[in-house]
């Protein structure tokens, strides 16, 4: 094992939640179909030796962290839940004119500060850097909460060939759409078959 880059990009809580939920849905679906095939086999009385679906065993570790992480990310106190997919994108775009760092924007998306006190903890030297703009920033954040609920659809992107399954590819595109604003400084060098995806996205975004 070799760690090529321990911190290639930052992910927001919502992105992780989306990934985990898709994993969870996949597990449930495969469990269901495994059960169904088993039932059919029993009914027809034939013993189908080793069907491939049953072989997809999910490791205990993955299930544990998946369930626990979903529990944390969907807990009632998580402020980022008040934002929708589209809300995140809009929020990051709306924050662009303010001189905020990538990490600060990430935390704003994760914690959705609506009170000045909360913003103080996230943005260093808030008064010097933003001054009168603070209310504008808070206003932008509040707007994105009430404007939430518009789903982001990235189906317009021409899907380039990729080694991943369709569902994952969709996730990949959407996530990069959103994360783009904070990890564009560290360009991820895709050397695989999906090379160039992110570059294309940037061109479309701007």
């Amino acid at each position: 094992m070799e760690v090529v880059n321990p911190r290639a990009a930052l992910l927001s809580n919502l992105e992780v939640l989306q990934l985990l939920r898709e994993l969870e849905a996949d597990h449930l679906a495969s469990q269901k179909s495994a059960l169904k095939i088993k039932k059919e086999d029993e009914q027809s009385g034939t013993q189908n030796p080793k069907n491939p679906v049953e072989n997809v065993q999910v490791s205990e570790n993955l299930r544990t962290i998946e369930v626990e992480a979903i529990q944390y990310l969907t807990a009632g106190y998580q402020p980022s839940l008040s934002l929708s997919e589209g809300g995140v994108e809009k929020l990051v775009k709306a924050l662009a004119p303010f001189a905020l760092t990538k990490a600060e924007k990430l935390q704003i998306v994760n914690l959705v500060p609506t009170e000045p006190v909360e913003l103080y903890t996230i943005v260093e030297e808030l008064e010097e850097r933003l001054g009168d703009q603070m209310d504008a920033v808070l206003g932008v954040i509040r707007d994105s909460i009430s404007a939430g609920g518009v789903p982001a659809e990235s189906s317009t992107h021409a899907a380039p060939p990729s080694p991943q399954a369709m569902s994952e590819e969709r996730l990949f595109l959407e996530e990069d759409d959103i994360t783009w604003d904070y990890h564009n400084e560290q360009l991820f060098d895709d050397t695989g078959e999906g090379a160039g995806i992110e570059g294309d996205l940037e061109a479309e975004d701007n």
Partner: protein
Amino acid sequence: MFVLSIIKDTVAVKPHQFGIPADQALINEINTIYANKVLHDVGLCVAVFDLVEVGEGKVRYGDGCLWYKLVFRMVVFRPFVSEVLLAKVKSSDEDGIRLSVDFFDDIYIPLIYLPEPSAFDPNERAHFWLPSAADSETKPTVHDMLDSPTTDRMYIDAGEIVRVRVESDEFYDHEPGPPKALEGVRVAREQKKAPYTIVCSMVEQGLGPVSWWRNAEIEVMGDD
């Protein structure tokens, strides 16, 4: 809180998994190896994000597995220093507070990072902050604070949601050393240290239990 790490590894697909698509089998295999484990100096692995590069599966002498050389991206829990997190108070003791984010609970607040002045109430088994004593010139002693009226105290109870700032993180690599013996008697290994711990702070305006700051105004707050 979460980052993507790029990792290179060689992974075996066992013959009974040949029936399912290779990429799915590989992702399952990587998740089995990495999920919910701490990688030294990387963080706590959550799940595979995607496969970046997959080599050709090769059969080696001696087993029937297909060995793939891969590069993949992993979702890893590794909050950066100075990041603000929401966490739940798991327990409190004389040395500080332990926090949990459900899937990870080696997050600690030592005494020096508790709001000033604060003390530990052994009856309630909880730390409390005494904002009324913050204005006085002399630093109140622990004794003074424990004599204070209970209504002035702001407790940090177990189960409460707190906002904290990450101060530092530490990895500890367990090396399987030789068995220890003391006077010819084998000594049980000492309590294992957690492989990854995060130290957080509450010493700042806006940090601490979320309920403290819900309707707070900047002007009302102590320090300046």
